[in-house]
C-alpha cells in the first residue's frame, strides 16, 4: 500500500501526515488529526454523521480519501464555535430546539446546516430539509432538527 505525504488545513491549523492511499478523510481527521467530533455511522455515504466542510462544501468524509484532501481547507465541528465559546448559529439552533438526544449524528447535521448558511446565505426551509434528508437520526424523529432548520431559514437563530 503506497504511502503519501499530505498537508491539510484543519480548523485553520496545518496538519501534516504520512498516510496510506486507502486512508479515508474521516479516519485521517479522527485518528491523525485528533478531531473526533465527526463520527463514522455507516462508512458507505448514507448516514451523514461524518460530514465536514472541505473548501466550504459539506462533504462525507467517509467517501473521500485523505490524499484527496491534500492542500485543502477542512472544517470540522470543533472549528465552528467562536473562540470565546459562542456557538455557531447552527449549533445554537439545534440546542435551543432540542435537536439532539444521543448526539452521534449531530456533528454531521450541524456541518450541513453551517455549510448551507455560510456567508449569510438564507436557503429556504424546503432546501434545508432536502439537504437534511442525507442525514440519519434514530433518536429524535427529526422534530427538533426540523425546527432548527426552520429557524435558520427564517433567520431567527441566534
Amino acid at each position, binding site marked *: 500500500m503506497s504511502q503519501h505525504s499530505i498537508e491539510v488545513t484543519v480548523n485553520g491549523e496545518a496538519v501534516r501526515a504520512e498516510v*496510506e492511499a*486507502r*486512508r479515508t478523510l474521516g479516519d485521517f481527521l*479522527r*485518528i491523525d488529526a485528533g*478531531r*473526533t*467530533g*465527526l*463520527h*463514522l*455511522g*455507516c*462508512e*458507505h455515504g*448514507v*448516514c451523514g*454523521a461524518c460530514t465536514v466542510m472541505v473548501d466550504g462544501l459539506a462533504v462525507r468524509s467517509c467517501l473521500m480519501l485523505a490524499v484527496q484532501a491534500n492542500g485543502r481547507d477542512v472544517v*470540522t*465541528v*470543533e472549528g*465552528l*464555535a467562536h473562540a470565546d465559546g459562542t*456557538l455557531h448559529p447552527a*449549533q445554537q439552533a*439545534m*440546542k*435551543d430546539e*432540542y435537536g*439532539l*438526544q*444521543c*448526539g*452521534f*449524528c*449531530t*456533528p454531521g447535521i*450541524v456541518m450541513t446546516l453551517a455549510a448551507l448558511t455560510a456567508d449569510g446565505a438564507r436557503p429556504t426551509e424546503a432546501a434545508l*430539509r*432536502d439537504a*437534511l*434528508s*442525507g*442525514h*440519519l*437520526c*434514530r*433518536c*429524535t*424523529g*427529526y*422534530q*427538533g*432538527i*426540523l425546527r432548527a432548520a426552520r429557524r435558520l431559514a427564517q433567520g431567527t437563530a441566534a
Partner: protein
Amino acid sequence: MSASPPGGVAARFVGQRVPRKEDRRLLVGRGLYVDDVVLAGMLEAAFVRSPHARARIKSLDLEAARALPGVRAVYTAADFAHFGLDLFNSFAGRGSGPTVRTLADGHVRYVGDPVAIVVADNRYIAEDGAGLVMVDYEAEDPVVTIAQARDGAPVHDGYTDNVGVAAATPDDPEIAAIFASAKHVVTGTIRHQRQAHVSMETRGIVVAPHGEGELTLHLSCQSPHMAARYVSLLFDLPETSVKVLSKDVGGAFGLKIQPWREEVAAIAASLKLRRPVKWIEDRLENLTSASQAREQEITIKLALDAEGLLLAADLDYACNVGCYPHSNDCNTFAMMLFTGAYRVPKLAYRAVSYYSNTVGQAAYRGPWAMESLARETMMDVAARQIGIDPLVLRERNLMTAADQPYAMPSGMVVHGVTPCETLELALAKVDVPAFRAEQARGRAEGRYLGLGVAVYVEPTTMAMGGPFSTDSAHVRLDPSGKVSVVVSTHSQGHGTQTTMAQIAADQLGVDVADVTVLEDDSSRGGFGPGAGGSRQAVSGGGAVSHASRILADKVKAIAAHMHNANPADIRIEGGQISVAGVAEVSTTVQAIAEAAYFTLDRLPPGMEPGMEAQYRYRPPPIVFSNAAHACVCEVSAETGVVKILRWIASEDCGVMINPAIVEGQIAGGVVQGIGGVLLEEIAYDAYGNPTAVTFKDYMIPTIHDVPEIEYCHIITPSDSEGGFKGVGEGGAIIAPPTMVNAIADALAPFGARCLDLPLTPTKILELIEAGEKG
C-alpha cells in the same frame, strides 16, 4: 400543572423545558464515545465471519493471516476454550437456552457468525488479516423461517427440535363456550417483519487490562453497572475488579443491554495479549451480526357481543428468535398485556419461540409491542366486520376511571391510567367530523385519506424483581456549594444528566446549573440497571429525589441550629436560605455546606460532618403510563406511497420532569414505529443470506418521512416518589398500529386488510389491486 415534588418543595425546575446539560459538549465535538478512546499500545480487532447460514467447519488455515506484518494475533474458539465462556443469554444472569460461545466452535449457525478474531496494529490491517483466514466449510440446509423451524432439523446440538420456550394458558372450557355463543367472532393473522435496532453508533469496546482489578472496559452500553456485573460473572472475577466506563453512547434501544459475543471476544483477546484491544463494529457487521428484533406472527380471535363489547380473546403466537437470543423467552409478556386498556373478561394464549439459522434476537424498544399492534389493528378489523365506527368500538370497551384498579385476565392490575381522557383529547385535536367530511370529498376525487387511532397502557419501570428492582443515588454538596449526583441511571440520549439534575435542584433549592450528574462509571456509586423498561425517570428519579431531600433536611437542620430557628421554618430557594418570619436571617446553601466540612463546632451536637447522602429507591413494581395516538395519512392508489399528514400523540406519563425531553422520547419512538410499518425489513433469502446489509437496503426514516408531531399531555401523578411514569418506549409501541389503522382506513374502499408488515408501496399496490378485483 401538578408537578409538586414530595417534601413540600416548590417545583421550579421539574416540569420545565430546562435546556439539556448534555448538548453543549455534543454540539462542539467534545463528546466521548467509545471509538474516541485511544490508549497507548492499543490494538484493533476485526472478525472473520461465516458466509453460510449453517455449515460445519472442516478446517481453518490461519497461517497467512498470522504472517501478515502488523497482525498480532488470530484467535479461534480453541484459543478461548480455557476461559470456559458460556455467555448468559440474559442480562439478569444465567438463564436457559443453548450454549453461547464467543466464537463458532466446529459449526457456524448464521451468516455473520464470528469464526475468528484478528487483532492487529490498526483496523485496516486487522481487516486485511481477516481476509487472509481460510475456512473450509461443509454447507448444510439452513432453518430460516418460523415455518421451517417448526419441523426443520434442530439448529442446536443436544436439542430434539427448534422450540426455545413455549407457554400457554390452561384449557378453559368457559372460553370455548364464549366463542361458541358470541354474536361476533373476528379473526386475523398479523405478521411483523424482523427489524434492526440501528443505533447510529454501532456496538464497540476498548478493553484495557489495566486498573485496580486489571480490567477496565470502555463500552457502548445501557448500564456500566450491569455490564461490569455481566463480565465479572462471565469471567468469574470479583465484581469490583471490572470497571466499566461509558460516557457518551450513541443510542442503544435494547441492543446494548448486555455485552455479547464480539465484545466478550475482544475482552478475551485483550486478556491473552495483555494489551488494550479496541473493537468498533462497522455498519455491515451491525446489520448482519448485531442482535435483531421482532419477526413475529400472531393469530387473534376476538369474541364480541351484539353491542360490540369484548368477551374474550384467543391468541396463537410464534416468534423467530434466531440462533442465540439475548434472552430465551417467547414474549409471554406480550400475551399478558394483550387486553391493554380494554375491559376483556377472558384471555387464552399459546406462545412459542423458535430457534433458526439467523441472527439472534434482542429486546427492542417496547419488546412486547406486538400486543398493541395485534389488539389495535384487530379492533379496527372487528369494527369494520361488525359495522361500528372503530372509535365507538373503543369507547365502549375502554376502562374508565371508575373501572380502576382493573385486573386484566392475565392477573396484571392496571390503575392510574387515563385511556378515555387521552383518546378524547386526541380526537378533539383531529376534529373527526371535519376529517370524515374531507375524507368523503377526497374519495369522490380518487384521493384516499385515512384516520388511524390506537390506545395502549404501558407497564413502565419493571421493578418486579431481579436487577431492575432498585436504583441508587449518592448526592454530595461540596464546600463550594456545588452539587454532585452520582446516580445509577445511564443515558444513551435520554438526557438523564439534565432530568436528574432538575429533580436534585428542586429538592435542594439550588440552581440546576449548580448540579452535575455523573453516571458513566461502574466503580462510582451503587449498582443500578440503567436504561431498559422505561424505568429511569421513575426509579432513578425517585432515588435522586429522596437522597437530595435527606441532604436538604441536613442543610435545614444546620441552618436552624445556627440561627436558633425551627428546621420546619427554614426555606431554601435559589441557593439562599431564609427563616420564615425572621427577615434579618439570610445565609446561603454554600455557607452551610462550607460549615459542614470546615467549622464543625457550628453543627448541632453529634451531627455527622459533611454534606453527603445516599438512598436506594425501590419503586412500585410496575407504573402504568398510557397514551392515545392518531394519524391522518394519504395513500396514493397510483404509487402505493403513504404520506403522513398529521400525527397526534396524547399521553399521560404522570409528572413530566422535562416536557421537551418527554416529547423527544415520544417522537423518537413514533418515528421508529413508522419505520417499522413503512420501510424497515431485515429479510433473509432461502439460503439464510441477509438481503439488507447497508443503509441503502435497510431504510430507516429520513426527515422526509416524518410528520410534525402534535402533543397533548395529561398529568396523572403515579404513586412513585415524584409522581413520575416511564415514557421511553410508548411511542414505539403505539405508532405501528396507529399507522397501520390509518392506512387501512384510507384503503377501506378496497376492502384491504393491512396485516402483513412492512406496508411497502409494492405491498400496498397489491392490496389495492386485490381489492379492485374484488
